[in-house]
C-alpha cells in the first residue's frame, strides 16, 4: 500500500468510510511524516499535533455515530499563515504580527470545519503574500521538495511544498497574482485559484483586495474540486463574495463533462522569457488535447505584456492601504524606540516589515500620491479593463485557455532576491487571470531534464470552474505525473 500521506482525498475518504482507516491514524501518519521531513522542507511555521489529533478524534466519533460530514471529514488540510484561525497565531510570516492570535475563524476555515476537515498547522509564505519564492518569510526559507536547493515558488510556497512532501492531504493558499498556481507548478502539485468572489475573503489578511482569492492545493484535480466545493458561496461578511453563476457540483461535472473542448492557446505566452523545456512541455500538453479530439485555436490576448505593470500598480496601491493597519497601536509589533505618535508608526513599521513589503508599500504609496494617481493607478485600472476585454473576446470562441503556469521551473535560492523586477516577471502568465477575476488551475504536466516539475495552466471562464476542472482532470488522468513523488 502506498504511504497514507501521499494518498488522495478520494482514496482516503473511501478508507475512512469503510472503516479500514481512522482519522486519528491518518492524522498521526501525517504528523509523523511532517516530523520526519519538515526539517528539510521547512513548510510549516508551526503546528499543534495535539490539537490536530483532537480534531481527528472528533471526526472518528462523528463517523462512529453515523454522522460523517462528507469526503473531507477527518482529512488534514494545511493552512497558509495568511488565513485567520481562531486562537491560533496569524503572522503572515511577518515579524509585524509576531504575537498576534486571531479571535475568529476565516469564513473558509469555518466552512472547512463544517465539512469535517482537520485544520492543520500554519504554512510558510512570503511575508504578507508578497513574493514568488517564499524567500520573503521573516521566519524561514522553505525548500522545494524536488530539489532542496531551489525555491518552492510563492507566495504560498509552504502550502505547495507541504503537499509535495506529503505533509498534508490538501492545503489552502491564497492567490493574488499567481501565488497558488506558480508554487503548485514548481512543486508538481495541483493548485487552483477560483473566480474572484467565489470564496469569501473574510479572514484572509488582505494583500490586494480586488485580486486576492483563497484556493486549494491538492494531489489531484478532483481533490481540489472537493476542497473548493466545501469553501465556496456568498458570505455576508464579504461584500465582494458572490454566489456562483455556474455549475458548482464539481464531482458530477468531472464525470459528465468529457469534451471534446475548444481550447485557446495565446501566442503571447510562448514568446520571450520562456524556458525552452517549459515551452516544449506545454506544447506537448496542447498536442495531447488535440490528440483527444479537442479543437485548438490560436488566440491573442494583445494586452498581456501590460499585465505585469498593471498588476504591480493595482496590487501595491491596495497593499499600501491594506497594510496601514499594522501600526504598532493595537496588536502589531511596537518599536521600543517609539517616543511619540509619529515614531510609533515609523519605527514600528520600519522594524516590523521586511524589504519586499516595504518596497511594495512605498511603490503603492507613490502611485496613489498626489499628482501621480491618474498617471498610474487610474490608468492601470483602465488597462485592466482592456485585459479583461481580451479574455472576454477569447472566450467567445473557446471553452478554456491553455498556457504555461510559470515561464521557468523552480529557480535556485537567492537567484532573484536582489532583482525585484526579474522576480515580478515570474508571475507573467498568472497575473492577468487575477486582473480579469477568472478561475485557473495549474496541473502537473511533466518534469525537466533535471527532474523539476512543470505545470500546465488551464484558465476558465468566470464561474466556469466545473468545465475548467473537467478539462484539467482529463489531462491529469491521461498522465500519471501526480503519482510521482519527490524523494526526501
Amino acid at each position, binding site marked *: 500500500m502506498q504511504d497514507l500521506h501521499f494518498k488522495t482525498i478520494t482514496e482516503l475518504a473511501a478508507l475512512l468510510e469503510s472503516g479500514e482507516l481512522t482519522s486519528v491514524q491518518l492524522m498521526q501518519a501525517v504528523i509523523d511524516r511532517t516530523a520526519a521531513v519538515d526539517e528539510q522542507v521547512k513548510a510549516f511555521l508551526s503546528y499543534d499535533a495535539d490539537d490536530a489529533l483532537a480534531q481527528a478524534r472528533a471526526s472518528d466519533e462523528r463517523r462512529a455515530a453515523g454522522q460523517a460530514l462528507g469526503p473531507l471529514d477527518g482529512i488534514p488540510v494545511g493552512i497558509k499563515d495568511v488565513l485567520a484561525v481562531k486562537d491560533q497565531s496569524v503572522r503572515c510570516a511577518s515579524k509585524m504580527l509576531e504575537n498576534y492570535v486571531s479571535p475568529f475563524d476565516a469564513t473558509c476555515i469555518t466552512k472547512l470545519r463544517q465539512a469535517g476537515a482537520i485544520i492543520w498547522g500554519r504554512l510558510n509564505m512570503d511575508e504578507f503574500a508578497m513574493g514568488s519564492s517564499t524567500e520573503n518569510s521573516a521566519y524561514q526559507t522553505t525548500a522545494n521538495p524536488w530539489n532542496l536547493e531551489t525555491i518552492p515558488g510563492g507566495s504560498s510556497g509552504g502550502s505547495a511544498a507541504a503537499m509535495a512532501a506529503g505533509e498534508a492531504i490538501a492545503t489552502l493558499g491564497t492567490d493574488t497574482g499567481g501565488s497558488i498556481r506558480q508554487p503548485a507548478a514548481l512543486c508538481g502539485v495541483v493548485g487552483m485559484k477560483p473566480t474572484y468572489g467565489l470564496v469569501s475573503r473574510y479572514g484572509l489578511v488582505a494583500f490586494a483586495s480586488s485580486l486576492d482569492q483563497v484556493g486549494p492545493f491538492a494531489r489531484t484535480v478532483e481533490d481540489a474540486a472537493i476542497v473548493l466545493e466545501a469553501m465556496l458561496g456568498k458570505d455576508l461578511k464579504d*461584500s465582494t463574495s458572490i454566489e456562483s453563476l455556474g455549475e458548482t457540483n464539481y464531482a458530477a461535472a468531472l464525470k459528465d463533462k468529457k469534451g471534446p473542448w475548444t481550447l485557446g492557446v495565446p501566442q503571447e505566452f510562448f514568446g520571450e522569457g520562456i524556458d525552452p523545456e517549459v515551452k516544449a512541455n506545454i506544447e506537448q500538453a496542447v498536442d495531447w488535447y488535440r490528440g483527444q479530439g479537442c479543437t485548438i485555436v490560436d488566440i491573442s490576448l494583445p494586452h498581456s505584456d501590460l499585465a505585469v505593470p498593471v498588476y504591480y500598480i493595482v496590487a501595491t496601491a491596495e497593499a499600501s492601504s491594506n497594510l496601514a493597519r499594522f501600526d504598532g497601536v493595537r496588536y502589531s509589533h511596537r518599536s521600543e524606540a517609539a517616543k511619540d505618535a509619529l515614531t510609533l508608526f515609523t519605527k514600528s513599521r520600519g522594524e516590523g516589515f521586511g524589504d519586499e513589503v516595504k518596497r511594495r508599500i512605498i511603490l503603492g504609496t507613490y502611485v496613489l500620491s498626489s499628482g501621480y494617481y491618474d498617471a498610474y493607478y487610474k490608468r492601470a485600472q483602465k488597462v485592466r479593463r482592456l485585459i479583461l476585454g481580451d479574455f472576454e473576446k477569447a472566450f467567445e470562441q473557446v471553452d478554456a485557455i491553455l498556457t504555461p503556469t510559470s515561464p521557468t521551473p523552480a529557480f535556485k535560492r537567492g537567484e532573484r532576491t536582489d532583482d525585484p523586477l526579474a522576480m515580478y516577471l515570474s508571475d507573467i502568465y498568472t497575473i492577468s487571470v487575477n486582473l480579469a477575476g477568472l478561475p485557473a488551475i495549474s496541473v502537473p504536466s511533466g518534469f525537466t531534464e533535471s527532474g523539476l516539475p512543470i505545470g500546465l495552466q488551464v484558465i476558465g471562464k468566470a464561474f466556469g470552474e466545473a468545465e475548467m476542472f473537467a478539462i484539467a482532470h482529463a489531462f491529469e488522468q491521461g498522465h500519471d505525473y501526480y503519482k510521482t513523488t519527490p524523494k526526501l
Partner: protein
Amino acid sequence: MDYEATIGLEIHVQIKTRTKMFTAAPYEYGAAPNTLTDAVVLGLPGTLPVLNHAAIEKCAQLGLMLGCEIAEVCKWDRKNYFYPDSPKNYQLTQNDQPLCLGGEVEIELADPARNAAGEHRWVKLNRIHLEEDPGKLTHEAFDTLIDFNRAGVPLAEIVTEPDMSSSAEAVAFLNALRNLIIYAGISDCDMEKGQLRCDANVSLKPVGSTELGTRTEMKNLNSISNVKAAIEYEIERQRDVLESGNLVVQETRRWDVDQGISFSLRSKEEAHDYRYFPDPDLMPVEFDRNRVEALRAELPERPFDKQRRFEQEYGLPYTVTTVLCPNRELSEFFEAALETHHSPKLIANYVANDLLRELAAGSEHGAQNLKVSACQLTPAHIGTLAKLIDEGVISKQIAKEVFTEMFATGELPDAIVEKKGLKQSNDTGEIEALCREAIAGNEKAVNQYKDGNEKAINALKGPVMKATKGKANPAMLDELLKKLIDEG
C-alpha cells in the same frame, strides 16, 4: 482697504442607527471604554467592512430634507492617513461620488428687534457624504489612551458652499440645520455628545472682489457659540494679517475654547496627500428612484414652512411660531391639541409659554432638548383646558391653577375643575348682592367711573373676585357693575 468674509462649513453629524456603518457592533454614547468593538471595528487582520443599509437610507433622508439630489450611483473610497484613533489608518468615506449632491438650507438671520421675523435666505450646500467616525483619544500627562467605541459610527458630512459672510449667518445656518436634522429623525444633534461637530473655512477678500482669498480651516468647534467666536476671531486675525501687508497662510487651525484664540495645527502640505482610491471591499450603491420618492413622501414639513403655515392658517404671531415651529414635537403637539378644541391662539399660548416653562423647570437637559413626550400631558389636556376657558366654565386666572395641577398629576382639566369646585360662578343673584356691597363700599371709585374713567370699575371688581375666590365670570361681572351704577 475694506474686506468681506467668505465662510463655508463642514458639519459632521452622527447618524442615529443602532449599529455601526460597516459592522453590526452597536453604538451608544457614554458606554465603558472599548465595550462596543468587534473584529471589524478594531481593524483586525482579515476583517472586511459591510455597508449598513439603515445608515444609507437615513443619510438619503437627510439629503432630501436638505433639498439634495440623491445620486444615481455612489461609491466608497479610502482616505489614507495615519492617526492612532483610526483602526485601519484609512477612513472609509465617499470622495468623488457622494450619496447626496447640492441642496440648500433656509436660514433666518436674527432680527435686532428679536420679536419680529428676521431676514430669510438660502445657503447652498455642495454635498453630503457618508463616512465612519474614528475612535476617541484621551490625552493624559505622559501618554494617550484610546477608546474605540466610537470608531465606525456612521457620520454624514454636510459640506456647504462658501456661501456665508458672517458669523451670524453661520450661527443661523447651524440652528436651521440642527432643526431640520432633528425634525427628520436623523440625529439628536447633541453637540456636547459629539453628535454634531463643525469645522469652518474662512477667507477674506476685498469688498466686491469675485476672487476668493486664501482660506483657513478651523477645527474643534464643538458648540454653536464656539463656531461664532472662532469665526469672528479668524476674520479679525486675517484682517490684521492682510492689513499689515502679509499673506494668509492656508492651514488648519485649532480653536482653543479656554483662551478664546485659535492656533495653527499643521500647514505641511504632506498632511493633505490622502491618496484617495475606490475601496475594493465595498460595492457601489445604486439608489432606487422609487425608493427616493417614497423617502421624499415620508419627509416631515420643514420648520420654516410650518412657521409660515401657522402664521397664515392660525393667525399666530411670530413670537409664538418662532417658539413652536423649530421643535417638531411641540408643533405637532399644538396641532393635535387643536383637534380637541379649535382655539389656535389660546392653545398656542399654552404650549409655547406654560407648557415650555413647566418642562424647562423640570428638565435636566438644555432648553433645546425639551421633550414634550417626557411629561404626562397629552394634546387633549391642553385642548380641553382651552375649551373650558372658551366656554366660560373657568376663567384664565383659574386655568393657571388647573394647568399646574394637571402638569403635576396628569389628570384631565375637567376632572380637576370638578374635583376642586373651580367652576366659574354665573349665579347672578349672589354676585349682584356682592356688587351692591362693593358699590356701596367705594364711593370714590363709583364717582370716578361716573366721571368717565372706565378703568375705575376694576377697583370694584377686586372685592367681588376675592369673595368668590376668582370664580366670578369677569365679563359678566363687568357688565353687572356698570348696569348697577348706571341704574343707581
